[in-house]
């Protein structure tokens, strides 16, 4: 007679920690994150423009790089989780122990989330450093400019500080994290169906592009209820793009951030449940 094992968060945590450490040891991840940090740091070398242009370029470039490298890490990092376990056959050893499939899958997903979070923190810190560096250079340039009056210099320096120290950028990074979590969940769903990592990565990117194209497709196909309903199966990733508007100085209310985050988290939860249902049915 077999005894049914209850759900344990501890086992989820163990699998997550193990997944996280394993991912950190991967060369692909290390190369990606080093490259991301170098790209972000290089953003501070935009020059020959007005200070508004330079600060806009730095912010756009850095947040763009955070999004690109975050997407790469989320998709590539998650796509190889299950295929790697199957290829090395460690999944059979783990599931033969009192570890439920739901715990295993959740642990893998949470490990991937930790990796995405750590990457975002590192890239954001580098972004902050690039912005501070650019700000200090611009302020120094204004102080050394002998063609402007003291009053004008003071006004320009105040404007540089205002534009460089924009607290709303945190909202942009937070929503990027929610978007990457959703992309990781979608990639996890594909990896429960296929054992090919290349296929999973390709499908992850397809989902990324489809999510961004959704608004355009909806515009082209009209606003019919059936069309809208069918399109809702694909998440609208464009909704998470508030970074452009933050950089342009538009006020982003917290209520909007909360709504978009709720949208992303709800999607992610359902996709993870669907991934579990597929994984639970799968023959090993």
């Amino acid at each position: 007679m077999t005894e049914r094992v209850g759900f344990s968060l501890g086992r989820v945590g163990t699998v997550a920690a193990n997944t996280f450490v394993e991912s950190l040891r991967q060369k692909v991840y290390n190369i990606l994150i080093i490259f991301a940090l170098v790209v972000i740091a290089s953003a501070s070398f935009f020059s020959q423009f007005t200070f508004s242009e330079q600060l806009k370029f730095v912010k756009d470039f850095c947040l763009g790089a955070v999004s690109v490298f975050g997407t790469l890490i989320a998709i590539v990092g998650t796509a190889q989780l299950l295929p790697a376990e199957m290829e090395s056959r460690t999944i059979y050893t783990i599931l033969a122990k009192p570890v439920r499939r739901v715990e295993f899958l959740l642990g893998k997903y949470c490990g991937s989330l930790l990796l995405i979070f750590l990457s975002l923190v590192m890239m954001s810190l580098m972004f902050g450093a690039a912005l501070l560096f650019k700000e200090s250079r611009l302020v120094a340039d204004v102080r050394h400019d002998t063609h402007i009056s003291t009053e004008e210099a003071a006004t320009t320096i105040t404007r540089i500080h205002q534009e460089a120290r924009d607290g709303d950028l945190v909202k942009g990074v937070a929503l990027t994290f929610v978007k990457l979590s959703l992309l990781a969940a979608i990639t996890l769903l594909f990896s429960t169906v296929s054992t090919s990592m290349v296929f999973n990565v390709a499908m992850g990117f397809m989902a990324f592009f489809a999510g961004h194209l959704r608004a355009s497709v909806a515009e082209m196909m009209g606003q019919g209820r059936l069309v809208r309903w069918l399109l809702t199966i694909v998440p609208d990733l464009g909704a998470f793009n508030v970074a452009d508007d933050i950089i342009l100085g538009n006020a982003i209310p917290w209520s909007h951030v909360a709504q978009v985050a709720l949208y992303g988290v709800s999607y992610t939860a359902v996709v993870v449940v669907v991934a579990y249902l597929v994984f639970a049915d799968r023959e090993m």
Partner: protein
Amino acid sequence: MRGKLIAVGLLLALAAVMMPLESRIHAQRAELKFGGSGMTMAMRDRVGQEMAIGLLAGFRGVVADFLWIDNHGYFERREWLRMYRNMELCTTLQPQSVTFWDVGSWHMGWNIAYASRIDPANHTQAEGIKREREWQDKAKDFLTQGLVYIPHRWELYFAMADLYWRKFKTPCQARDYFQRAAQFKEAPSYCLRMYVRRVEDCDGPRAAYDVWRKRWHDGNPEPSSDGIDMKNVMRRELHRLEELLDIPASQRLISSPHA
């Protein structure tokens, strides 16, 4: 099999649940005027394949920035029309960018206009002046369009006022735009000062004096966004105008420009 069927059912149910939330998010984005115009075939032809992929992937800001950087090359090669079309494209991609409208109009109204006037290809001096005026008009139209998208910031009102004042030499129109710029709390102190100076040019020193006088009686002004003490500015300007208008000492508000 049962699990897979439930999974498909869940995904379909998700669509029904998500529709109202999505509609709310889209409505809020429209209300907040987020994003720019959608991708069109004309835009695709002008941005090139790589940039189009960037646009489709949601990197509108980065694409607009790289296109804007191209302006530098057009400027150095004196390819004014290409530069103009490029600036138009950038503002189509990011119509909420103050920088693009502001710097774009400055290029048109100042740099390109001047370069067109002194262009050796002009047959007569009059042709140069005509071409200069055409670019200044373009700058004005560009700013007018920008103000449709960004009426809630002071920068474009200031740029328009500056254009009217320094290029079209029409202080009365400049006065109106400086006044609108000065009404914003975030506007730097010079907006107000320049507004009253244009009141002086347009309506005479007495009118300018009345503006400062009213503000003086309104009480202690808050420091402006650039940290300049407006009380000192008012003191200086009132004293200058009282001297200019030769106001009797007994009626003066300021006996000395220094406190």
